[in-house]
């Protein structure tokens, strides 16, 4: 099976500062893969490279077999993204935001309206279509952003720390919504976070620390390998050991 996302030996640096160092991992279709790392681990750089904001200095990134640099159109049309920063246009209504996004994928306004209504209904926001994006709460904005990212029916969804700044209930709702999508639509999801409690035992986890992949397995396997009590404990051991090695 072709992976939804495949990174091979990806390295990137800003001047002398190395942000990513030989990163390789895959996200399978129908999997909820967690990219776990502290702030500054390189998660956002990785997202910028996958979404082709800029090019990796070394290595290859494929989305369903399409290389993002050589076949950007084919790769990006299979990709939905929820960025860390809020990216809704606050001056526009919720539906206008969706129609604009659809246009950026070549979907006309009538079809966009139909798809938008269905996506908002799924996100539990059908009655907010005409409201200005500015009037939504943080959790609602995130749900609209997910609805928007799925409008063009991508097969891979990237979310960069989507729960930051949300209250406990909004976080749980958002997580449940995305996990449901993975089950129902067999989406490949890459969920970047630094919050341990968002990880389930069977989730594939990639631990990124100072730009390097330190572990790449299911949460359960990582915990077992480290002889740790839970994934949080395992994360501390793995990154702590790496830190010691670095300072030695």
């Amino acid at each position, binding site marked *: 099976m072709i992976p939804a996302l495949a990174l091979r030996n990806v390295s990137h640096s800003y001047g002398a500062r190395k942000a990513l160092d030989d990163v390789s991992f895959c996200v399978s279709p129908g999997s909820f893969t967690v990219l776990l790392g502290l702030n500054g681990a390189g998660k956002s750089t990785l997202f910028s490279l996958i979404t082709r904001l*800029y090019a990796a200095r070394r290595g290859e990134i494929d989305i369903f077999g*399409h290389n993002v640099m050589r076949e950007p159109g084919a790769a*990006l049309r299979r990709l939905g993204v929820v960025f860390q920063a809020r990216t809704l246009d606050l001056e526009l209504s919720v539906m*206008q935001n969706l129609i604009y996004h659809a246009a950026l994928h070549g979907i006309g306004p009538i079809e966009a309206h139909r798809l938008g209504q269905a996506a908002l209904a799924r996100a539990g926001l059908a009655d907010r279509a005409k409201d200005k994006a500015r009037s939504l709460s943080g959790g609602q904005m995130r749900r609209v952003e997910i609805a928007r990212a799925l409008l063009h029916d991508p097969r891979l969804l990237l979310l960069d720390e989507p729960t930051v700044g949300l209250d406990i209930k909004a976080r749980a709702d958002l997580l449940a919504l995305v996990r449901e999508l993975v089950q129902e639509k067999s989406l490949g999801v890459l969920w970047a976070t630094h919050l341990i409690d968002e990880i389930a035992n069977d989730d594939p986890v990639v631990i990124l620390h100072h730009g390097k992949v330190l572990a790449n397995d299911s949460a359960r396997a990582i915990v077992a390998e480290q002889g740790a009590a839970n994934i949080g404990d395992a994360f501390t051991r793995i990154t702590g050991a790496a830190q010691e090695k670095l300072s030695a």
Partner: protein
Amino acid sequence: MSERAAPTGFTLRQYLICLSGVVWREGLRFLHQRERFVSALVRPLVWLFIFAAGFRQVLGVSIIPPYETYVLYEVYIAPGLMAMIQLFNGMQSSLSMVYDREMGNMRTLLVSPFPRWFLLGSKLLAGVAVSILQVYAFLLIAYFWEIEPPTKWGYLSVLPALALSGLMLGALGMLLSSLIRQLENFAGVMNFVIFPMFFASSALYPLWRVKESSPWLYYLCEVNPFTHAVELIRFAFYEKVAWTSLALVFAYTSAFLVAAIIAYDPARGMLMRRGG
């Protein structure tokens, strides 16, 4: 059908949907930001009603093409004010691009599967359309101040000139937006770009007058792209073509556009060098 074999290209219709979507959004934003529209109108009107009225006695304009008689100073500076609207609009679009980039909105545009040159071109055309609307709103008010072309056709013949000069100034703004990392740095660019471009041009005074007082300033004005945008508009408003200015505006537009597209190119651009 496997994922790999799925279709990849877009049809012409889809390109048009994308272009009209970008223009539509820019139009909506413009309508929602009424203060932006008002300030875009007030700025040239202040120049016209106050500055020009005050200086009409001081600054005499001799008969120079495209004018066939003596003209009032207000009439002389009107094309410069039209270009000024577009200059501010171009810079404002670039400001919004820096803002969008900081806020993340720019990413939703750049992550679209359409080619990046097409996305940037669409954004540019959207800005030009808005600037042309502003110019015509200005001309409507100026009409009641007795500033009008010799025949009504002038309103139509000036349109291609406005489109080209809008493209040039928008492309310059886009290039600048790629070079500016943060919003805080923008005020300096406004001072270093807008004011020198406007004052070292033929917008406020004919270049022969500049030449009399300072030859080096005259040469500076001659190479200033804004001078040629103003002259292109001035001649087109009188249903004439300023060929040298047309060629230069075309050349400057191409250069700015190519540089902006390179600056936004993922593999070579400035975004990559500075980390977004």
